[in-house]
């Protein structure tokens, strides 16, 4: 962490910590705690995707699939085999990482459009598997009988308890991401984003780093998926389809691809749009998402955080040209 982040981090943490105390006492927004639990879960996915898209410059339309692998692995291990959720969680993470590595090694040799299509195709295949393996996943009608979470023998029952559990993990993941970005790997990723060929000729093992970030983003998505499973205790394949992958991408883009704070902001915003404000006209949902995505891509490619004036001193990417592409 450097510069402003040193101040923003505890500030945001305080805000998040105090939020339920406020929300709980106001009837009109008391259910916001529940929405914020979802926002926290999705944030874990979008922080990983932010590293991949914003910093390494690689696109992935398969995040919902990894989210789903984590969710179903956790659901099957606990519901079927009676494992503790905390023991099931690493299973999902390992499964998603393994799959991500298998797909990532050949896929990340591709660039731009081809990479997008490859991850898109992979994501759709995974959704088909979720729908077809009735015996394991319950198929389209869903998977039930998933237990909730416990900590030291006590059930995590209330929304408030879930809220703090999930957001503690969000901040741990955030710390971890900041740590990565300010390490050798982080600098290498940015170099890959700016000019892959140049990075490679300077001795950066570009393909290895790209695969590693892809696997990391998949692992984080699976971690989030595990929380999701035990929070909602009901899974259907439609929670992990292409639309959700696009939604995760949108979360990262709205806030600002090249900023972890942006990803967090975008995720909270989009979760509120999806779970609260759009409930009124649910059928418009897809139109609204399309419109937001288009407007952001055309007019605000660096997301909402680019509207905040930058102070000198922070060592994030500062570049006048809108070159956020991968070729």
């Amino acid at each position: 962490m450097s510069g402003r982040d040193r101040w923003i981090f505890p500030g945001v943490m305080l805000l998040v910590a105090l939020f339920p105390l406020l929300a709980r006492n106001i009837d009109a927004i008391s259910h916001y705690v529940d929405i914020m639990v979802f926002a926290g879960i999705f944030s874990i996915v979008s922080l990983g995707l932010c590293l991949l898209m914003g910093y390494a410059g690689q696109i992935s339309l398969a995040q919902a699939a990894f989210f789903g692998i984590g969710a179903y692995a956790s659901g099957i291990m606990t519901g079927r085999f009676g494992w503790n959720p905390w023991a099931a969680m690493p299973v999902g993470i390992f499964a998603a990482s393994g799959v991500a590595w298998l797909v990532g090694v050949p896929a990340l040799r591709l660039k731009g459009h081809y990479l997008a299509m490859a991850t898109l195709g992979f994501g759709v295949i995974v959704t088909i598997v979720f729908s077809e393996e009735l015996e394991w996943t319950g198929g389209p009608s869903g998977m039930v009988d998933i237990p909730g979470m416990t900590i030291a023998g006590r059930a995590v029952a209330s929304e408030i308890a879930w809220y703090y559990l999930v957001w503690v993990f969000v901040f741990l993941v955030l710390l971890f991401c900041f740590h990565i970005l300010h390490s050798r790997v982080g600098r290498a990723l940015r170099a890959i984003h700016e000019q892959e060929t140049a990075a490679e000729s300077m001795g950066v093992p570009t393909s290895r780093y790209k695969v590693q970030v892809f696997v990391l983003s998949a692992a984080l998505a699976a971690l989030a998926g595990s929380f999701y499973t035990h929070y909602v205790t009901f899974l259907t394949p439609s929670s992990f389809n292409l639309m959700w992958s696009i939604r995760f991408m949108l979360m990262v883009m709205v806030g600002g691809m090249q900023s972890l704070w942006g990803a967090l902001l975008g995720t909270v915003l989009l979760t509120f749009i999806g779970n609260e404000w759009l409930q009124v006209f649910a059928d418009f949902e897809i139109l609204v998402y399309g419109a937001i995505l288009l407007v952001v891509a055309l007019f605000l490619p660096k997301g909402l955080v680019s509207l905040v004036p930058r102070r000198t001193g922070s060592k994030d990417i500062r570049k006048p040209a809108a070159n956020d592409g991968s070729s």
Partner: protein
Amino acid sequence: MDGFTLGTQWLQYAVSGLTIGVIYALVAIGYNIIYNVTEIINFAQGEFVMLGGLFAVFFVESLHLPIILAFAAAVGMVGLVGLCMDRFIIRRARNASVLSLIIITISVSILLKGVAMFGWGKDPYSLPAFSSGSPIIFRGAAIQPQALWVIAVSALVVIALTFFFHRSVYGKAMLACADNPNAARMVGIPVHRMVLLSFVLSAAIGAVAGVVITPISLMEYDRGALLGLKGFGAAVLGGLGNFFGALVAGVILGLAESFCAGYLSSGYKDAVALTLLLLALFFKPEGLFGSSEAVKLKRF
């Protein structure tokens, strides 16, 4: 007797595979036309197919047009959609990065899907077949007349396109833009207009595919993504930009899918084409008919 039924089944699957395969080929050709001129992969290509089918349904059911007129009107409407897409969206993003362009065409695809859901609802629609008549029985396999229409119309489109690109001034100009946009501009080819034309043409071809397939497989608002993805599989497998390759690869994908649905598992039939797409992307991104040298020079 057993051998006989096995034989007819085989033929039946082959016919339905061929039918859906030429549809994938048309979608792939749509990708190729835009890619050839702009080097953009249009993620909304599948939505053109969906819109084509649904517009035709609208013209037949609501306006009671004869099918031929409805066909033409639907293709025209979707062509207009393609025109608007280029004129009002893609042209604004002329200097955008590849990542932004991907996201822009994805958002157009979501928007089109949303509009379709709004306009037509979530139910699948059907169209009457182009010609009435009972299925033709050929060696025990029942062939719907509409399947013949699909194949005939697709063949016509491919022939017409071949003539267009090799004989007409516009077609040659479009190919020139593909080869080298700067040089094309210098010899006086209006590159903007050629890009516009490529979007209109590719949307119209998508619509043709949508109209001819709707009587067989119905059409609903969310069919675009999967059709687009499989069509892209055909485009890659055939070598991106290669029309003949797209046709062959589309038929291969259609046959693979149909045989899988018949003999292995109908639930996984959609996964077959996608798996082939992944294999092609991973191990033979230049396609069956492309050269691996040339593919290194392409910009994705």
